[in-house]
């Protein structure tokens, strides 16, 4: 079941400028892109952000396939949003919103592709460290967030796997046959991850 899942969102080892850039710089870039795209910027700003993200993608020496993969997975969703916005508010708004979504997703993709999970965990833990005196457990928070991040590609991958399995039995048009197993897989995956952590005594609150 985890066949497709690992292809996305994994770290892509390399030694590019982007790989070596500090995590906070990459996180700031993602934040700026998200703000530019969703805080009411115009279609030109969104196009500019998208261009910058694509340039950065190749500057990080990431394969083109890695750019295409998230787009392909979101294609239906993007088309629906695009069509709706086109119909409601015209082509410029439709483009602004699509470019904004793409730029943000691809910027997040660059962040996870060029930062090892371990560094991401450290960064997250440091981010919430000041909240420790209010009872927060930074290590646990970091683990939860990064496991959530890792579960997203798993769930998307599960849709692909289940589609293949449904096709093999001629059930590809059966919505139930295509969604129910994904839910079951997702619950099983969450359980399995929990047990995998318990097997090493990880992920539990510190005293």
């Amino acid at each position, binding site marked *: 079941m985890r066949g497709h899942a*690992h292809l996305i969102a*994994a770290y892509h080892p390399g030694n590019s400028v982007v790989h070596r850039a500090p995590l906070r710089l990459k996180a700031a870039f993602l934040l700026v892109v998200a703000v530019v795209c969703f805080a009411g910027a115009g279609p030109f700003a969104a196009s500019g952000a998208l261009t910058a993200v694509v340039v950065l993608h190749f500057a990080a020496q990431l394969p083109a396939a890695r750019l295409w993969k998230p787009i392909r997975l979101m294609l239906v969703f993007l088309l629906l949003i695009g069509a709706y916005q086109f119909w409601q508010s015209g082509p410029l708004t439709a483009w602004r919103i699509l470019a904004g979504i793409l730029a943000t997703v691809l910027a997040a993709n660059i962040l996870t592709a060029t930062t090892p*999970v371990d560094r991401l*965990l450290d960064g997250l833990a440091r981010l919430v460290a000041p909240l420790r005196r209010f009872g927060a457990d930074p*290590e646990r928070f970091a683990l939860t967030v990064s496991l959530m991040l*890792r579960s997203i590609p798993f769930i998307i991958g599960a849709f692909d796997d289940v589609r293949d399995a449904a096709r093999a039995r001629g059930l590809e048009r059966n919505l139930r046959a295509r969604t129910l197993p994904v839910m079951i897989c997702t619950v099983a995956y969450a359980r399995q991850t929990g047990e*995998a952590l318990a*097997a*090493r005594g990880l992920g539990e609150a510190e005293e």
Partner: protein
Amino acid sequence: MNRIQLDAASVLLPAADGTDRQILRPTTLDLTEQRIAVIGANGSGKSTLLRLVNGLLLPSAGTVTVNGLDTARDGRAVRRQVGFVFTDPLSQLVMPTPLEDLELSLRRLYPSGSKRRTAAMDILDGFGLAPLAQNSIYELSGGERQLVALASVLAVRPGVLVLDEPSTLLDLRNTRLLRERLAGLPQQLLISTHDLELAQDCTRALVIGDGGVVFDGPPADAVARYHQLAR
């Protein structure tokens, strides 16, 4: 010395028809040997017994303690002492590469990122896995994957290691490598297995049948008893 104790521990699980089914009959055991095997037919309750030991499963009645710590009351402390190795290493590995998975285990022991990485590489090297450190776990062979899973569990330095059929997915060569690796460990080992040679490496063996311990003694006698049951 480590000590696993079951005191009239039993497990009831809800069956599909709404009634409760007894998966493990009230069982009392005092396990202090360094190498303990658990053998028995499919569905007899081996995994259930093993899962009780690190609190992955809690007894419906009775108690399970490890070095005096109750799995129900002190679950967290128990899990820090008892590592668990699953049959399928893919269920065990949380991160996409061996190096990242080891680093995850080492987060508590090494707060500094660079020291953690060095320590992770050292461990992988000790298992002969250093060249594969950055490969995807999906690209490793089953034997390599099982070794990574074992390394990741050992990295948190448990005193007790519970292994649920660790060699079931391995070929002969990898099974031998795993047996050698296990033989050298300082931990107390509780191993469920269908591999009777692996069982013979132990000093005490439990035969599980129908949700209860039906034999407890030297491995050679246990295997004989198991053969008798299988007829």
